[in-house]
């Protein structure tokens, strides 16, 4: 289904990525998931093909645009492994752009260039206070001369195992929002990385726990200014949420495609499942839900591409797309019947991964709080329940 935002070059890119994913990633995913191991060599391959330069406009990368990145990320999500997708995103969307935006020439040379080539893997360790969590950032950094001394732990950090370096948000001031971004290279004394057991889904993601004990990070490893880390992270939030939405749409589309295939082939009561109206209508509802989520996601993408504030739209897209992902994967599993319950078919993995995506990078509850904060603002032109016109409740 064609969309207003994408030009011919984007459609060509989409076909290229789709073919690459089908040929080189899709067939391997089952083995990686079974082994619960992210394929390190995938980063090099993506670097080779130039895909990792998508996040770096300017001299380091291909100088491509948000729609191009979006095409790549949505298509990548059709690889069938939420974990593989998440690790690539952690590198490309979460960590690299921070270096790209904030890094000095020297920092970009050291950290960004090899990451674009896929020779270095990047991780971002930055969990901030969430609506329902109640814990402040659990990593603290104290300035001592020309070093920061870092202490604390962070669990479930994507790419922490494979990463050559971790962009870490540490608290450097009294307030919860006083964060500073530090680049920690692997091998630094006092930096310990421990593998973790796979959870419900995302088994092929590289996920590890960080433990920092008196880890001395040179001031030259600081990205941007002290205590501005929170602001830097906020700047990337809408895009990150949008990316999660794109991933959910891509994954849902894959689940739908496989459900369509299965329903067309599986014969019971003398005819394929697709000949039963109940099943056909189910598939229609699934397809419609995917389109609806995609449309909202592309709408948010359009605003971002135009440089407009898309905080509300991105949060809404994230909320809707992830819920759609869960619903579509669930119906796809149901359509597969007993075969949906055994691991021989990938649909049970799609079901598990969709559930993980809902909670990743901010829960649905958090998304709703963000949207709620904006319901009485600007575009709705309503007078809110606060004292001022347009004030927050």
């Amino acid at each position, binding site marked *: 289904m064609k969309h207003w935002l994408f030009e011919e070059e984007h459609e060509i890119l989409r076909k290229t990525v789709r073919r690459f994913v089908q040929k080189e990633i899709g067939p391997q995913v089952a083995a990686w998931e079974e082994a619960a191991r992210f394929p390190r060599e995938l980063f090099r391959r993506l670097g080779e093909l130039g895909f990792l330069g998508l996040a770096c406009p300017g001299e380091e990368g291909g100088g491509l645009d948000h729609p191009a990145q979006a095409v790549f990320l949505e298509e990548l999500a059709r690889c069938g492994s939420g974990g593989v997708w998440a690790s690539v995103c952690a590198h490309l969307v979460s960590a690299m752009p921070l270096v790209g935006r904030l890094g000095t020439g020297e920092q970009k040379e050291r950290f960004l260039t090899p990451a674009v080539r896929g020779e270095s893997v990047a991780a971002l360790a930055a969990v901030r206070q969430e609506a329902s969590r109640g814990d402040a950032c659990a990593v603290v950094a104290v300035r001592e001369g020309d070093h920061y001394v870092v202490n604390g732990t962070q669990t479930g950090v994507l790419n922490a195992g494979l990463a050559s370096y971790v962009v870490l948000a540490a608290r450097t001031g009294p307030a919860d929002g006083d964060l500073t971004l530090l680049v920690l290279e692997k091998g630094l004394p006092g930096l310990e990385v421990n593998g973790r057991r796979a959870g419900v889904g995302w088994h092929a993601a590289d996920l590890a726990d960080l433990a920092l004990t008196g880890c001395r990070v040179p001031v030259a490893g600081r990205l941007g200014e002290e205590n501005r880390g929170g602001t830097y992270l906020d700047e990337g939030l809408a895009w990150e949420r949008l990316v999660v939405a794109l991933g959910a749409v891509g994954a849902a589309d894959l689940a739908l495609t496989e459900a369509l295939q299965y329903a067309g082939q599986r014969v*019971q009561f003398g005819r394929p499942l697709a000949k039963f109206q109940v099943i056909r209508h189910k598939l229609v509802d699934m397809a419609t839900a995917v389109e609806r989520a995609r449309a909202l996601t592309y709408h948010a993408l359009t605003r971002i591409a135009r440089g407009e504030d898309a905080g509300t739209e991105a949060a809404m897209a994230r909320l809707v797309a992830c819920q759609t992902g869960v619903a579509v994967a669930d119906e796809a599993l149901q359509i597969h019947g007993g075969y949906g319950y055994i691991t021989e078919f990938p649909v049970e993995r799609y079901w598990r991964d969709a*559930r993980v995506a809902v909670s990743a990078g901010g829960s649905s509850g958090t998304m709703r709080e963000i949207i709620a904060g904006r319901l009485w603002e600007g575009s709705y032109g309503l007078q809110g329940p606060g004292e001022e016109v347009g004030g927050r409740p």
Partner: protein
Amino acid sequence: MGHYFFTAEHEELRRAVRRFVSEEMRPEAEAWEEAEYFPDQVLHRLGELGFLSLRYPAEYGGRSGDLFMSVVVFEELARCGLGAIPLAVLVQMEMVPPPVLRFGSEEQKARYLGPCIRGEKIACLGITEPGAGSDVAAVQTRAVRDGGQWVINGRKIFITNGVRADFILLVAKTDPAKGHQGVSLFFVDKGTPGFAVTRKLKKLGMRSSDTAELVFEDCRIPAGNLLGEENKGFYQIMWELQGERLFGAVSAVAGARYTLERTLELVKTRVGAGSPAGHQLAERAAELEAVRQLVYGTIWKVAHGEYPVKEISMCKLAGAQAACRATDLALEVLGECGPTAENAVQRSWRDARLNRIGGGTDEIMKGIIAGLLEI
């Protein structure tokens, strides 16, 4: 929560099973799931303690109890935290024994019914085939009479207890011209030449339950292994299908209620009262309670001689959906609390999911109900 259908005798049974589950099962549950196999000994032990035979006649080792005895057993077994155990017991206690009790010869009952409900011989039921899932009548496994024997050829899939079972109660076609009226039931013992387990399937959930793919290649069994009348297999198995659905619903609801119970404990300690998830949890609790009452009421009808196919289908449909919604919410809520107890909750979420498929999918249940509503 006490209920007017349960007497003092039921409550005494409940206490006994609860104690057994918490002392002998719950401590090992995680390890069994890791191994993707709970020990055969679990079924032997349940049989030894008399928990599998309560509602069967005393002459076969039972206590001639009522259906609510079975309800108590399933409800308490759900508290071991593994859906796999109630599933195995469902086959062992409520799927295989009933047709044997009703249609078996005394000799067959001595060989199979008694040992089954005493937990001495583990049983499985062979209906589903790769080409016959929802369409049970499409069974192609063939049984051909040859002198004093039957010769069986075919394959079965998704057979619970199929790897460990000492015998299978098999559904095979004896008259291909007759569709579902040409199907018969046979006993096939483990170790019979020509009968083999080809695969133990890896699954999304119910992992410590062994689910088998079986093959029959010119497998010869004595004529005396036919259960009941030739070509009456479908009719003979009909009660089994209803019992599987009804007690499946009991287990689904009990498992989900146990999960919610644990989730509420964790939410209270981690987040405190007034959690934003409160309203959603309330909805799921209300839904589960409604289904529980429907299930109890339907059990009562069956216990009083009725054959309420519509209500049984409703129990299965509503129970499966309520269980899936509740465990899904539990996982989402605890995802926000951190990963501490996620293992048990995410397991119950994966386990619950089978209920909407196994024993008859949601869609089949809806079709049956619609048919009975005469739409």
